[in-house]
């Protein structure tokens, strides 16, 4: 039998001898992730169903990152539910403020997700770890409660779509642009209930941070997972951790429902316009979009290489008067790196704020919410109506270089033109 990487990982987590797309399976999970918004419901459901002890305290990860550091007392209560449950169940992988970071950046940083793992997370951007060659997918709180009970998750085996990227990327173009371009081509349901497999010579040259940004947004096309076959770059990344990964690749004759092939030579930085991530245009077509706020951060683009690119553009410059620039390193480790490398100073001297790790404004939580008629450009992943605050506000999505350049000019701008 010929299988895709996704099918191989799923098969390895069942007691079956063969699996086919469309089939329902009960899979054993390696990591069950929850945050301060989704885990409280999971914990409540787990207890309500009469369960007393989690199936394996080492496979559960709890990260209060959405409304943490707590934005109000009700958020504080939700964070406390996680802390109390971690203590009661002896869950080691609970990350209090101070150790906490944005979950999808924190887990790979700590080596908590390995290539070949089956990861479920009560957060839609759990698909991020597909960049490592793990089958990683977003589920709901009740799914999480069930995994707490017996370590299993029901899944319908998705068919796979292969995306092949050829050519050479321009200087200011990276993983974020490739995924925005892709979503723009296929739409927000273009991969509905499918696995997206990103491949081709362009992907083979992408660094891990760009790969994470791509896999992160598979869900914005409706994808269940966004997988990249592990290669030397993956292996080099994993060499820093002790645990042994399992590297799976797709068979050459594996079945794909569809194959897209694009030459991305000359591709411009891409921008998603309000109010869908699929409403994508090249940056040169957006000349007169005046901005009130720029946000650089999130589980898509809050990694060190993202912040280095932004700092390179902002170094010695001032942001447009009246504009708010919000920079959020995704984890404490990245925060410290920014301080040590002088990036934090560049952001502050340019007139921006350098905030503590949190999902913050990405989902309209806190630390930079928009009011009526305000427009933001963000390196985040969603621009739905009201996503960052008021239902009458506007959110554009881009890579960190475009975001930094636009903070200087006050309008959506190509990095070469700031």
């Amino acid at each position, binding site marked *: 039998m010929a299988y895709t990487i996704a099918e191989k990982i799923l098969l390895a987590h069942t007691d079956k001898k063969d699996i086919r797309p469309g089939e329902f399976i009960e899979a054993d999970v390696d990591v069950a992730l929850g945050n301060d918004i989704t885990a409280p419901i999971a914990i409540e*459901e787990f207890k309500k169903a009469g369960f007393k002890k989690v199936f394996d305290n080492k496979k559960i990860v709890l990260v209060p990152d959405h409304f943490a550091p707590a934005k109000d007392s009700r958020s504080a209560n939700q964070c406390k539910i996680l802390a109390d449950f971690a203590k009661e169940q002896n869950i080691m992988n609970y990350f209090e403020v101070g150790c906490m970071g944005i979950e999808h950046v924190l887990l790979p940083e700590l080596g908590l997700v390995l290539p070949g793992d089956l990861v479920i997370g009560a957060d839609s951007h759990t698909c991020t770890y597909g960049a490592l060659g793990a089958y990683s997918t977003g589920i709901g*709180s009740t799914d999480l409660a069930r995994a707490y*009970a017996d370590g299993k998750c029901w899944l319908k085996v998705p068919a796979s779509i292969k995306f092949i990227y050829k050519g050479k990327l321009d200087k200011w173009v990276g993983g974020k642009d490739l995924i925005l371009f892709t979503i723009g081509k296929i739409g927000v349901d273009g991969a509905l209930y499918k696995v997206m497999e990103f491949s081709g010579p362009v992907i083979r040259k992408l660094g891990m941070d760009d790969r994470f940004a791509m896999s992160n947004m598979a869900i914005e096309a409706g994808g269940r997972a966004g997988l990249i076959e592990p290669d030397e770059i993956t292996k080099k990344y994993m060499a820093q951790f002790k645990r042994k990964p399992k590297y799976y690749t797709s068979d050459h004759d594996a079945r794909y429902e569809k194959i897209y092939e694009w030459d991305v030579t000359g591709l411009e930085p891409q921008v998603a316009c309000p109010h869908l991530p699929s409403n994508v245009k090249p940056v040169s077509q957006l000349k007169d979009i005046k901005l009130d706020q720029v946000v650089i951060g999130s589980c898509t683009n809050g990694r060190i290489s993202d912040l280095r690119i932004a700092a390179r553009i902002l170094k010695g410059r001032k942001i447009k008067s009246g504009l708010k620039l919000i920079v959020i390193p995704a984890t404490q480790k990245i925060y410290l790196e920014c301080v040590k490398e002088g990036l934090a100073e560049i952001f502050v001297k340019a007139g921006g704020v350098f905030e503590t790790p949190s999902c913050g404004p990405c989902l309209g939580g806190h630390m930079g919410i928009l009011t009526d008629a305000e427009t933001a450009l963000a390196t985040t992943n969603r621009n739905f109506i009201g996503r960052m605050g008021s*239902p009458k506000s506007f959110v554009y999505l881009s890579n960190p270089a475009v975001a930094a350049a636009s903070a200087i000019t006050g309008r959506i701008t190509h990095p070469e033109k700031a």
Partner: protein
Amino acid sequence: MILKGKVHKFGDDVNTDDIIAAKYLVSTDAKELGKHCMESISPDFSGKVAAGDIIVAGKNFGCGSSREHAPLAIKGCGVSAVLAKSFAAIFFRNAINIGLPFLETSDVEKIKEGDLLEIDLSGGIIKNLSQNSVYKTQSFPGFLQEIVEKGGLMKWVAAKKER
């Protein structure tokens, strides 16, 4: 189970931020969440929806976040079922897991705002009483039907453990 209610129509790609905005995710209570259901795209929705009413939408309903608060909010404001052309994957499984009745149908364009529908869930039959017409849909595959019949995922898991 037979459900009967008035139709509230929505378009394509209704996302979970539309269904329940993030600022309300400091509660896990369905009734409280229900007060803000659809607020961003239909500010008076929770005021005009009556118990038993039915949401009818286009493709990709419930796309976006994994928040189970979305199907909870829909349940909490009294909506008895959701019909759509297609559902986003996480919303689909959340609805199965918490027992929010929903059906996929390609006939959503024929259904109008305010129509009175009668839905036979187990048979997958939708009667439009206002237009005197009938639409057929597929019922869930066996595995999902089992979870639905047990009253949701946790009850299904608990029952499995006892066996």
